[in-house]
């Protein structure tokens, strides 16, 4: 296993990965400081006969330093994440004119409702396909998540997308695939016996291919 995030195919995935590695570096530094410090102390200050420990109850200066420094780091991180989080998850930031799909999760299926050639959900030419999610690359996609029975979680690693599907709720999720490819939808929330194999095929097409595919499926229905 190579210690890496899977290749990223989505627009905001780039920033997510950046943030991941930024945190990786910050925490990495802290990690090295702490562990190295501990090892150093174990070696340097281990018990020696006749030696007496240095008597102190602490230092307010140090306390303040190591209170303020982490606090500052976290504030910066917090602000940065807050912005990115809002861009990705806030319903008011859903992209305009995105092509819309509906995903109905049930034990243990992903049922994808396609808008049909007219690209509008809730019209006569909508059709439903089991466990196969096709959509075009290079344009925003909005998925309306619903669950029939229990809570499932819509997870496409390569697109850095994850959102629980909750019975009784209709939750919008958007993403924008940068290029074509073939992945899987995985269920990330324990949903029963078949949780581990609740997977569906994801195919990202060029626009033209997608239209062709959708037209052919629409006829088949």
């Amino acid at each position: 296993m190579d210690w890496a995030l899977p290749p990223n195919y989505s627009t905001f995935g780039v920033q997510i990965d950046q943030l991941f590695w930024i945190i990786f570096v910050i925490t990495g530094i802290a990690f090295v400081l702490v562990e190295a410090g501990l090892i150093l102390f174990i070696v340097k200050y281990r018990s020696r006969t006749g030696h007496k420990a240095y008597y102190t109850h602490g230092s307010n200066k140090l306390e303040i330093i190591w209170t303020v420094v982490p606090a500052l780091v976290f504030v910066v991180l917090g602000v940065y994440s807050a912005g990115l989080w809002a861009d990705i998850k806030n319903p008011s930031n859903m992209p305009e004119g995105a092509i819309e799909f509906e995903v109905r999760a049930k034990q243990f299926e992903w049922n994808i409702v396609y808008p049909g050639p007219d690209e509008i959900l809730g019209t006569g030419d909508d059709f439903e396909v089991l466990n196969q999610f096709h959509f075009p690359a290079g344009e925003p996609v909005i998925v309306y998540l619903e669950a029939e029975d229990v809570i499932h979680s819509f997870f496409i690693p390569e697109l850095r997308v994850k959102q629980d599907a909750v019975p009784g709720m209709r939750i919008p999720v958007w993403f924008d695939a940068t290029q074509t490819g073939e992945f899987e939808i995985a269920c990330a929330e324990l949903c029963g016996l078949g949780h581990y194999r609740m997977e569906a095929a994801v195919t990202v097409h060029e626009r033209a291919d997608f239209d062709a595919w959708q037209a052919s499926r629409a006829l088949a229905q």
Partner: protein
Amino acid sequence: MATIVAEAPGQATGHAEHEQSFLRKYIFSSDHKIIAIQFLFLTLFFLAVGGLLAMMMRYQIAWPDQPIPGGGILPESMVASGYILPEFYNALVTMHGSIMVFLAIMPMLVGVYANYLIPLQLGTHDMAFPRLNMYSFWLMVPAGIITLASFWVIGGAAGAGWTLYAPLSARPDLTGVELGQVMWLVALIFIGLSSILGSVNYITTTINMRAPGMTWFRMPLTIWALFITAILALLAMPVLSAAGIMLLFDQTLGTSFFLPEGGGQPLLWQHLFWFFGHPEVYILILPAMGFVSEILATGSRKPVFGYKAMVWAIVAIAFLGFIVWGHHMFMSGMNPTLGLSFTVSTLLIAVPSAIKTFNWMGTMWRGNLKLHTPMLFAISFVALFAIGGLSGVFMAATPVDIYIHDTYFIVAHLHYVLFGGSLFALFGAIYYWFPKMFGRMMSEKWGKVHFWTTFVLYNLVFFPMHGLGMVGMMRRIYDSTGYAHLEGIQDTNQLITVAAFGLYLTGFIFAFNFFWSIFKGKKASRNPWDATTLEWQTPSPPKHGNWDEVPVVYHGPHEYSHPDVLDKDWLAQNERPDVVSPAAGSH
């Protein structure tokens, strides 16, 4: 109720062992020390059980296409033709988490050490309400029996995860589990009652029964941690009970508090659960922090660095702990704007944890480190808790959490704080207070063997899980080989499993050392670690009632290497200043 009223305080602590029957003295005893030891045996047993469940899980994850050796002894409803069934795997996942949290770690931290240490370190004869204390133990026993029994009822044990997310936990027709789910909730309500009774005791005792001179800021950090923990349990547990009762009604009476078909809200369960669940996380780590602070001070022969900062850090963590629950629900469909506020509080709560880590290092700095087994476990606690804390930052950053939520990254994180944190501290505490509890030392040699094997194998098991999480391996999956993005992780999973088996075996080294030492261990002196806190100023083990004369406290808790004390490098809390040097008392 009646009990509190009826309780003539301390009645059970009169020095009258000889008058007591064996049953009253060792089984239905109201002596806090006996109760603590009863809790210790009970929780060690459940630690072993929970571990065994984990071993079965690990086998399944590593070799999903191989029948499990010896699976034949299990009924067809768990293991069919040698293969662990998915429903049984879900039960393993659920019960491993539940048992470890509610029947092993939590009662071991609180039931054992709050019971044992609060009266001894505060210098009183027993708990405020000894009989309530006894009930709080005897409520855990039926809880344990019901939990184990639930594996054998039709449909098997609870399988909806330890978080019991509704509707999965409320709809038998969707899981095939009906009775198991109900039994687990009943056990949970017993446990909740037990820990509430315990908390009432710990809090009251700490507030009202400190020895003369034991001011708030002369209390050992262990007591501070246990006191704040008790407050957390007192306020969080009833919320879980309330939620659990509603879920129980959904399961059995056909109500629909959490079922959308009847107008209920699945997310309400998550809010209630995590409103309890996050304080619970601190219930599971604060006492460990207390033990570590104390063991580090004793082992380094230095006062705790920044004692007051440590106290305020505990208080801050406890307070913030009640307003961060939502960070478990970033992906749950909760209003994203709400998510922001939880991000902030979550990052805030990391600060006191950082303060504590640095203060522990400060305590070791320029010390005179005695690297005995308890000290080794305490130091590795700092090392491993740091990793667990830092990996938490990834989750607090919501955009990153989108990707790592519900992956093995979380599994790694929670085991670094719960195992590398709480359990390592607990091992340290067991080695440290064993002489006081049983009057004999545990074997240092075997203790060191236990420590090093545990430390190495532990990291082999859980560190690679960060990698699995980065690759995107989901939690709680029975077989990961079906996923394209998870190709090539099977070797890692097998490595982890092999290491996990080894880790489980190290438990036997500990068990051997533990039981052997109870009978054959070297006799322990009053104060084998040259420690300063009050419990070490009584015989090992202390007699029934702890003290003939209540000690009077003159010094802070961790007065090591005081410059004015020349003959030794420690100053007991109850040593009169004029005996040593006038300067010593003052600070």
